[in-house]
């Protein structure tokens, strides 16, 4: 049997975050495949929202490289403007959103703008927010998907592109953010929850361990009492993932 990849475990875990009937900003890459899995398994009535101004109630029939690929536009039920779909997000009508990140701190604050102390003269220039900061500001729940790396999971990020829970209790409410903020972080090694607004390891993926996660995490690791191994994707889920991402472009790429 083909060995399981971290990408596949992440997709399966991401799919579990989508509940039936929910409206979800599914973005692209792994979350988009997670949407395919969720729709074909436990969440047949989930609805996919795309920030270029689109709604789909069926996933595109083929693998996408961007959410604007023609197969993702063909068969949409609504094709409008970015501010229209983002407006629904701002109104609090979107249940969940998926985003990625280059750097994250333990409070779920994400940096996708620039590494280094001076934004005008960065050590590493990153691409920026796209729609991520909006989704993190405004969606009821946020699911973050990232490679697990000590340099990426830092005690503090250099620049908060995308708001998490902030470093003091009640920060989101105080600054006026209405969305719920990070609920789950899915990495290449494990799954974190944010029970008190801080990332706490809930499970480690097959092949990883609490110790390995601790070694690869840039903050002092907290672990839930019943930490356990992440559920292995079922055969049915793997079949969907591998049938959709046939060449493994998103789920089997070098990590």
């Amino acid at each position, binding site marked *: 049997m083909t060995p399981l990849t971290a990408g596949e475990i992440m997709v399966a875990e991401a799919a579990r975050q989508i509940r039936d009937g929910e409206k979800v900003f599914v973005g692209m890459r792994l979350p988009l495949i997670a949407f395919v899995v969720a729709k074909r398994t436990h969440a047949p009535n989930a609805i996919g929202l795309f920030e*270029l101004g689109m709604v789909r109630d069926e996933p595109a029939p083929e693998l996408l490289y961007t959410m604007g690929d023609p197969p993702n536009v063909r068969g949409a039920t609504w*094709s409008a403007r*970015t501010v229209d779909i983002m407006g629904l997000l701002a109104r609090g009508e979107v249940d969940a959103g998926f985003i990625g990140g280059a750097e994250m701190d333990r409070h779920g604050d994400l940096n996708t703008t620039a590494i280094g102390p001076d*934004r005008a003269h960065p050590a590493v220039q990153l691409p*920026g*927010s*796209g729609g991520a900061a*909006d989704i993190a*500001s405004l969606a009821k729940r946020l699911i973050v998907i990232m490679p697990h790396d000590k340099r990426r999971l830092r005690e503090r990020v250099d620049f908060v*592109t995308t708001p998490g829970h902030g470093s003091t209790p009640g920060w989101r409410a105080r600054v006026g953010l209405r969305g719920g903020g990070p609920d789950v972080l899915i990495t290449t090694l494990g799954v974190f929850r944010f029970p008190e607004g801080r990332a706490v390891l809930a499970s480690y993926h097959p092949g990883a361990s609490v110790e390995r996660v601790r070694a690869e995490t840039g903050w002092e690791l907290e672990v839930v009492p019943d930490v356990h191994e992440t559920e292995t994707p079922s055969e049915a889920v793997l079949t969907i993932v591998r049938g959709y991402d046939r060449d493994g472009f998103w789920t089997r790429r070098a990590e």
Partner: protein
Amino acid sequence: MTPKVMSMAEAVRRCVPDGASVALGLALEPAIPFALVHELVRARRRDLRLIGPISDMAFDILISAGCVAEIDAAWVGNVSAGLAHGYRRAMEKGIPRRIVVRDHSNLSIGLSLLAGALGSPYIPTRSLLGTDLARANGTFREAPSPFDGTPTLLLPAIEPDVAVLAVQRSDEDGNAQLWGPWGISQEAALASKAVIVVADELVDRSVIRADPNRTVAPAFKVAAVVVQRGACHPSPLQDRYGRDHSFFHAYHDATRSAEGYAAWAKEWILDLPDHEAYLAKLGPRWEALVAQERAR
């Protein structure tokens, strides 16, 4: 009325002077007017201010060519391939020059242009509150809503000198029709002082009038109509041609160094007189993208 149909070179000459603010790539990943981007490089435009949401590869090309002084964007990179090497070089090392960036999100750039389109000085939002992005942009203001005192972020109107609309079809007056997602195309066109339409196909006025709901902006906003098939390659244009993923990846691999960019630009822009030559160079690969999309 003055005829508006002209070549890409003429449109760039007339409508995009050095220092102009230019909104492009407005439908996000699809319908990016790369043919115009290439012409800006050939015309050696300088000190442009680029305005857009995602700007898949297009902004990186212009930055690397030294055309750009300022950027208002939510994201500058290569969507399916990764970081933008040219943007990194400019920001990290000032190569070929330093640029000023005002960071946005997709919503904030859309609302800023919408404010411009509505003739409103700003629009308040509850997105981005408390972020470094909101602070670092430098043009936003945080203020309590006068209605209930809750925090809001005020986004001032952006009114570009020119917006570029890449569309499936237009008439000769510039009534341009786009389908598939509009992203922030309409608000950018309405907010701008002038619009350049880059149409895959020129159609009779009667085609437009039979379906005016598809027209993005009224023709009186349009200063130039460029009829150019394949103008968005390697990005897709719905029902006309698919996305050339590997072209994006090849650009990413080729432009890791400034020299690499120079070689890429020589091959794909500077050594070619126009976009027809570019399509000819693509050859059967281009025909396949068209055939694949038309077959669906």
